[in-house]
């Protein structure tokens, strides 16, 4: 007990990390589910359906399958690196998320004074650190490709590392504009600081950075997709040319780790996009609309009602039971969130998650829609178009910012 | 919570530098030799930062930036040379690259 009181930071951090890890893992799992569903519907299929209601247990099944499959390690591989690579990938991908504030720092951590509830750390160079971590993320892929000691993975590894390095540059450059506007690298200040994104233009357009930094945002989003090796930039695992790219040789849980790492990266960049361009955990509605604090609850309740309807009309047998549980959870959660105190606390994360979900949906939507680049196209696009544009954006922003100072001393 | 005295950092940087030198002398692979140079630079950086902390001045940190830039430039050119080398004689061992002798 007294150890706890001695090291509040340590304890709080550990607890928060544990919780966050659990949530993110689940999120990853269900992100795969969501992706499969959405793609399926885009292609007018059903997608996963039979494992659990609406295939809701599919991720669990996949996880189990991965766990119990035989873990093959080709004899010619470089053992150490071969095993190291996936861990590296996943751990880095996850640890980047640890720096994201999911809610306003004002919300205190229960029974440990001086600690925030919604963010693990609140360091003043958070953004830079996130980039630092993502920049090391390359190694997972590269090493995996190299250590497999087989040509397709090597190709994939080379490609992806090249691609990641190339696009990392424009990724960073496109963000600097926002940093200039905010004048800080701290996430919370970028969101809500003196030059943050709170407030409104003409009382209804939220002061988000997308508006002045639309070019920056587009650059950022494009670069982010490339950074996460997603379609249309998913050349490292272009099946048609490279079987499965850098993780061709991987199987069972190591493969799963890469898989999760990819989705974790998606989440990370979405979080960044939200924070940098969409006002993070700020609500899009003017504060004077007092009723908005009930939106999360209301949403959940609506979801619950839909599930209830679905339960009684569609489902049969075990699936009906499962969906009933979901319904119960949704309704319960919704009602809980309708309590004003809870609602007040829940606001930040709610909006944050909502925005992230929207961006993720875009990700998946793109995958369902766009074809794949050719490699040289990819490179020339990155270097000859994306980088110059983001640089231009940066320069223009800088000029606009010092314009008054230029005009009168 | 008490602070680690700066001299610790300096000794550490010295050790790293020495190891870098050892690597510089003992590795045969050109790329590894480059890496050992980077190691030495890192050691120096550590010393810079430590001194900056000790004197509560930022100049040390600024110098770290410069060192990093120089390292980057060196790596770029050096690796380009390495690639040329590997293309021309199928080996990376510096001891096999000894045309430049009497």
């Amino acid at each position, binding site marked *: 007990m007294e150890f706890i009181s001695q090291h509040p930071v340590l304890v709080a951090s550990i607890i928060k990390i544990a919780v966050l890890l659990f949530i993110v893992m689940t999120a990853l799992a269900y992100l795969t589910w969501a992706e499969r569903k959405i793609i399926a519907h885009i292609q007018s299929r059903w997608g996963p359906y039979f494992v659990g209601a609406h295939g809701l247990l599919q991720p669990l099944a996949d996880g189990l399958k991965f766990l119990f499959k035989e873990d093959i390690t080709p004899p010619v591989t470089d053992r150490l690196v071969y095993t190291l690579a996936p861990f590296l990938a996943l751990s880095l991908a996850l640890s980047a998320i640890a720096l994201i504030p999911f809610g306003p720092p004002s919300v205190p951590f229960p029974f440990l004074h001086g600690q925030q509830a919604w963010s693990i750390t609140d360091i003043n160079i958070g953004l830079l650190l996130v980039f630092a971590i993502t920049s090391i993320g390359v190694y997972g892929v590269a090493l995996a490709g190299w250590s497999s000691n087989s040509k397709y993975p090597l190709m994939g590894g080379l490609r992806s590392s090249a691609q990641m390095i190339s696009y990392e540059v424009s990724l960073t450059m496109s963000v600097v504009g926002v940093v200039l506007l905010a004048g800080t690298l701290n996430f919370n200040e970028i969101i809500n600081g003196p030059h943050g994104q709170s407030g409104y233009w003409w009382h209804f357009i939220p002061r988000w950075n997308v508006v002045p930094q639309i070019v920056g945002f587009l650059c950022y989003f494009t670069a982010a997709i490339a950074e996460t090796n997603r379609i249309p930039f998913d050349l490292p695992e272009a099946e048609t040319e490279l079987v499965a790219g850098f993780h061709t040789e991987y199987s069972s849980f190591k493969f799963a780790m890469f898989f999760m790492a990819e989705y974790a990266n998606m989440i990370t960049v979405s979080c960044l996009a939200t924070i940098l361009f969409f006002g993070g955990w700020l609500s899009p509605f003017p504060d004077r609309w007092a009723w908005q604090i009930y939106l999360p609850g209301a949403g959940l309740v609506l979801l619950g009602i839909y599930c209830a309807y679905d339960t009684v009309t569609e489902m049969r047998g075990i699936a009906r039971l499962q969906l009933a549980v979901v319904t119960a959870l949704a309704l319960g959660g919704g009602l809980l969130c309708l309590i004003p105190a809870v609602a007040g606390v829940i606001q930040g994360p709610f909006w944050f998650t909502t925005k992230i979900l929207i961006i993720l949906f875009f990700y998946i939507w793109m995958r369902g829609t766009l074809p794949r680049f050719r490699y040289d196209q990819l490179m020339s696009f990155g270097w000859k178009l994306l980088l110059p544009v983001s640089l231009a954006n940066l320069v223009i922003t800088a000029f606009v910012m010092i314009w008054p100072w230029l005009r009168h001393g | 919570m008490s602070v680690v005295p700066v001299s610790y950092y300096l000794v550490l940087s010295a050790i790293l530098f020495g190891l870098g030198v050892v690597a510089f002398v003992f590795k045969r692979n050109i790329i590894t030799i480059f890496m050992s140079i980077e190691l030495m630079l890192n050691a120096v950086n550590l010393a810079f930062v430590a001194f900056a902390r000790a004197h509560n001045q930022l100049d040390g940190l600024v110098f770290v930036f410069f060192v990093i830039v120089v390292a980057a430039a060196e790596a770029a050119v050096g690796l380009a040379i390495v690639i040329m080398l590997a293309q021309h004689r199928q080996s990376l061992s510096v001891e096999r690259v*000894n045309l*430049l002798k009497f």
Partner: protein
Amino acid sequence: MPILHHLWIILALPLAGAAINGLFGKRWSQPVVNSVAVGSVTLTLLAVAELVREFSLLAPEQLPFVGNYFTWMVAGPFKVDFALQVDQLTVVMLLVVSFVGWLIHIYSTGYMAHEGGYYRFFSYLNLFMFFMLTLVMAANLIVMFVGWEGVGLCSYLLIGFWFLKKSAADAGKKAFITTRIGDFGFTVGVLLVFATFGSIDFGTIFKSVSANPVSEAVLTTICILLFTGAIGKSAQIPLYVWLPDAMEGPTPVSALIHAATMVTAGVYMVARMNPLFSRAPIAMLIVAIVGAVTAFYSATIGLVQTDIKKVLAYSTVSQLGYMFLACGVGSYAAGIFHLMTHAFFKGLLFLAAGSVIHAMGGEQDMMKMGGLAKKIPITYWTMLIATLAIAGIPGFAGFFSKDEILEAAKSGPNANLILWLLGVAGAALTSFYMFRLVFLTFFGKPRYDEHHVHVHESPKNMTVPLMILALLSIFGGWFAAPKLIGGVDYFEKFLSPVFSMYAPPMAEPAVVIGEPQASAGMELLKALTGVPVIVAVLGLLVAWWFYIKNPDVPKRLARSVHGLYTLLLNKYYVDEIYAALLVRPLLWISTNVLWHGIDEGVIDGVVNGSARVARASGNQLRELQSGNTRSYASWMLIGALGFTVLLIALFTRVVH
């Protein structure tokens, strides 16, 4: 635009012309080169005219007007500004230089028309104008020195213009080296000036010298040193030898540089430094003596020369002698006056001679001429006028100036009868050999082969300058005319501020001679006033008698006084003496000691030796070059270790 505040323009114009022609002229046709060269000089002339206009509006207390453009160099107390100044003296010189220069440019367009290196010639000519103008406008000794050396350079380039001809190249070298000797003295003089007055700026020097008197010994030394420079530049004894050889250059060059302008730089310099000279009587005396002796001496040489340009060259030397005589006896104004008139008639003489040579197709020997008067009347008449002028026949420019000089030598502030006598003798000889020249050239039977040489009058652009100069040779001296009838000498009056501003307080005559003798002396002197004219006329007559009336007299005379004749013909063997005394020993020293001894022995020895050492050591050391990077790394490590030890050794000394 008040050009007074942009004096540099006057320098910039010819410089620009020189640069343009020098850089691009090679590819251009003659008309273009002409327009550039003559155009730039014309603009210069106009600028000078405008300058004179504005100058005339200046109040006396504004003079000398100094324009300081930028600080050229600073070394401790030694500060040199690029400063130009304008006062009466400068104005006169500017007018002379720019106007005569202008005429000679025009003349050259005709004279050089058939020569190679046309653009080069005009580029050099413009460059010369630039340096000459720098020289006369300089406000301090260093800038003056720049012009001084610059004109020397141009003279070298132009004398050796036909550098393929060995004699020309040698003449150029001779001129350059000989004047160098003088310039050495000049440089030392400048340094001494700085050491004495702590400045090389004219105004400062003169003020300080007039404010607090300096020891006369120092002043004398300074003046003598400076005068050495003048001797070299203005071809006085003993450094005159280069000027006759300088006639190897194209005739316009001889006219412009070696008669009208450059050679008078020495006189100008002496006149410019008059406050110093006036305070150094001994130096003055030396100047006067050198001048007078030169005037007589070179006149004697001139008697027997047969090369038309050589004659003129020696007469130039002698006329310069007159100018120095004037300065020496303290009548700077007369000197400058003679400088101006001389510029007119001597320039004219040379141009006319050039025209003759042109007509004769390059022939310079008077013995192969004769009877040209009919064939080239313009040249004849102009040359006759110039001859009358230089001979000092009353009414012509030369008369007034030379008369003033002799007057000053006779009854000036520090008069000296011996010098006067020398001057008069020189005048007689001058008139003799000049008319000899005219008679030999234009009268009598043609002594050339009529079939080969078809004499023809020169083109307009050569004859027009001749005529203009002829007019000036007549009227150029009339500023001084009123003096004869007891009026004022306007020229002297105009220049007087320059020479009176810092003049030493007039000491009353050293020895007051008893009244009667004095009066007798006065009488005598008055009586002697007409002498120069008489002797001039005598010279004329003698020449007529010798070369028209009965032409065989000269030969007989030569035979009778054979020794003297050959002595004169060989110019007193001065060149041979110099060769024996200076040139050969120098050559021997430089060959055996400097070249074989020092250069080959020591320097090459050092170089080769070091090379040998390097190779030997390299042979040993290259074993280290194993070509193995790791070995190099280890060596580096050892070195680094050594350095850290060293550094820390020093560092700790700092800390503890």
